[in-house]
């Protein structure tokens, strides 16, 4: 019996080149690092230090009641900074909710990047200015957005790539799957960066996936998968740069897994002691992305104590600025509640805005009256 030559029976692509090297890619401490541009290394280092400081400052701001909540990326700064620095100016960044550092490193004002978490509005920056999608919490939902934008750019003939970030937990969502499939079928210029930091809040990797690595998921979509040491900033930068170049050059999407660790609790409100051992955290602290890079720079004579101090000072300046500006009350404008729901408010919204205006006017009158009179607050309006 002969088997007909039917295309369906031939694998549509060769799987082998898509499979990741199961050993995470590393540069620091390897000969490859010697070939690295010192300027890049210095830039990465300065940003890593700033990022570390920013995380600490933002966490402090939650204790001072200036932020509703902050999900720190301490320990993950190499991924955050390398992601931002690998992007070309015309590229777009699609952060996940923890990626404030990447957003700031991309150029967004450090205060505006915190608007969501301070709570005076949702997105504090104009996403078009730095080409950074809004920070937003529904996990993995930003991935199809990145694919759509990259697809639109390709349709428009623009050499623009999108970099979409997601956590290990977020990979379990259906949107992750749909996004990767669309990207591969459309050959969209998009790079997916999974920051595998070991936990989704309290849920450890073993309860999230049984895959050899997240990078192995790539073959199932027909795109290359790369595994990288997420605490090795130049390595992450290198892998992402290659993938973004390939994307812009019409080579299609890539899935990158960066192996890293969430040093802090999920957020300031979380108690990580409930679900993980301090020993594990300590092991990762000893493999710190900032120190790793610092050692490389120092070893290569690219950083001395004065340079280190200068970077530290710059980071302090950033933190001081952040602290100061976050300690001023944001100005709130109630009309904004209704202004952006639609291009034109519906008649019902206009009515509701009027109601609120009347209420606040009455409130203002009342407090004025209360202030000028001795007796307690004015009677309630019927």
């Amino acid at each position: 019996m002969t088997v007909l030559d039917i295309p369906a029976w031939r694998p549509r692509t060769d799987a082998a080149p898509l499979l990741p090297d199961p050993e995470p890619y590393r540069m620091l401490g390897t000969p490859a690092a010697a070939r690295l541009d010192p300027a890049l290394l210095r830039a990465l280092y300065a940003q890593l230090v700033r990022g570390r400081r920013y995380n600490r400052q933002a966490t402090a701001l939650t204790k001072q009641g200036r932020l509703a909540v902050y999900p720190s990326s301490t320990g993950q700064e190499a991924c955050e900074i390398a992601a931002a620095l690998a992007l070309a100016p015309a590229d777009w960044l699609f952060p996940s909710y923890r990626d404030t550092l990447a957003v700031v490193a991309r150029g967004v004002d450090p205060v505006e990047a915190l608007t969501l978490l301070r709570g005076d509005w949702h997105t504090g920056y104009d996403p078009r200015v730095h080409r950074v999608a809004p920070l937003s919490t529904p996990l993995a939902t930003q991935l199809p957005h990145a694919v759509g934008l990259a697809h639109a750019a390709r349709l428009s003939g623009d050499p623009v790539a999108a970099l979409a970030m997601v956590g290990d937990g977020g990979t379990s969502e259906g949107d992750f799957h749909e996004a990767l499939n669309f990207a591969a079928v459309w050959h969209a210029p998009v790079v997916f960066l999974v920051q595998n930091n070991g936990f989704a809040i309290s849920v450890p990797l073993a309860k999230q996936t049984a895959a050899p690595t997240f990078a192995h998921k790539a073959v199932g979509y027909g795109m290359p998968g790369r595994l990288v040491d997420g605490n090795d900033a130049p390595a992450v930068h290198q892998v992402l740069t290659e993938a973004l170049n390939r994307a812009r050059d019409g080579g299609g999407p890539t899935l990158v897994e960066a192996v890293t660790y969430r040093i802090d609790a999920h957020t300031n409100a979380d108690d990580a002691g409930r679900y993980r051992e301090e020993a594990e955290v300590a092991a990762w602290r000893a493999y710190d992305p900032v120190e790793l890079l610092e050692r490389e720079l120092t070893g290569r004579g690219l950083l001395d104590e004065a340079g280190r101090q200068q970077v530290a000072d710059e980071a302090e300046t950033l933190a001081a600025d952040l602290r100061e500006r976050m300690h001023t009350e944001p100005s709130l404008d109630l009309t904004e509640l209704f202004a952006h729901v639609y291009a034109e408010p519906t008649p019902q919204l206009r009515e509701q805005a009027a109601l609120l205006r009347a209420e606040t006017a009455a409130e203002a009158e009342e407090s004025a009256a209360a202030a000028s009179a001795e007796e307690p607050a004015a009677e309630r309006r019927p």
Partner: protein
Amino acid sequence: MTTATTDTGREAPPVRKQTTMAQALNQALRDALAADPAVHVMGEDVGTLGGVFRITDGLTRDFGEDRCTDTPLAEAGILGAAVGMAMYGLRPVVEMQFDAFAYPAFEQLVSHVARMRNRTRGALPMPITVRIPYGGGIGGVEHHSDSSEAYYVHTPGLHVFTPATVEDAYGMLRAAIASDDPVVFLEPKRLYWSKADWSAREPAVVPPPGRAVVRRAGRTATLVTYGPSLPVCLEAAEAAKEEGWDLGVVDLRSLVPFDEETVAAAVRATGRAVVVHEAAGFAGAGAEIAARITERCFHHLEAPVLRVTGFDIPYPPPMLERHHLPGVDRILDAVGRLQWEDD
């Protein structure tokens, strides 16, 4: 449904032909694609096949695969990709194959499409049209006949349009695509094959979607309806003459924005109203309509606003659907219950 064009106050164009709603929708997509390179049609089977209802027939052939694109089979992915395309300045027109198959995209719709403009203080508007063939009456098996409008109507940030005439199908779809805000465009699938004299060369101008249209003025009571139930209401109004009743019929056309002025005026004129739709009644769009009419017209009402809707049951199998759908008799029964003794 020839009454529709009379509202536009336009003369009939010289060239006319019997056009189906499906053809008018196709023409609207065509004209939108031709008029604006930012418009992109996408969805399952919208390409070579032209969609399972043929609404996108010929668009890929005439505009290319990049303008009318067969997507992988994943509704959240489709709508999510549309969000990204809109962020880049395109105007995606998404087709969901059937009402119930829009549910996988619910999170993208509610959490992003509806909120992106608001989230970004207007920086990222979402000019996305989500076309959904909806409703029953075509003998569809389970999950092919849902009336899902209430979910969308309750979601701030979405516009919800639903045409009931050939003219509106064209005019409102063009308006939806031109809108800088997301529009859930509900196409009453059982009216796809309804016909009207209509010219693609000179499409009738219709009122903007935010306006309800009085399809029939009446003195006895007012039927307030939309989409697939409009023809049923018009038929009921016709039949009501036998009873000596002069029923008005208001076609809402868009549920968001909701034209309460037109509705309130029509109801005040009669003092009695029945709201009619196919969807389950409990917390359906009709509840809002009834509640709002009551708020606006309380002292003009001779009787409570009644609702004739689908039962509060999962959409029944084809052989039983006629018992579920609001029909002429059930509407007239409701009119009959509007306490005539008060007259």
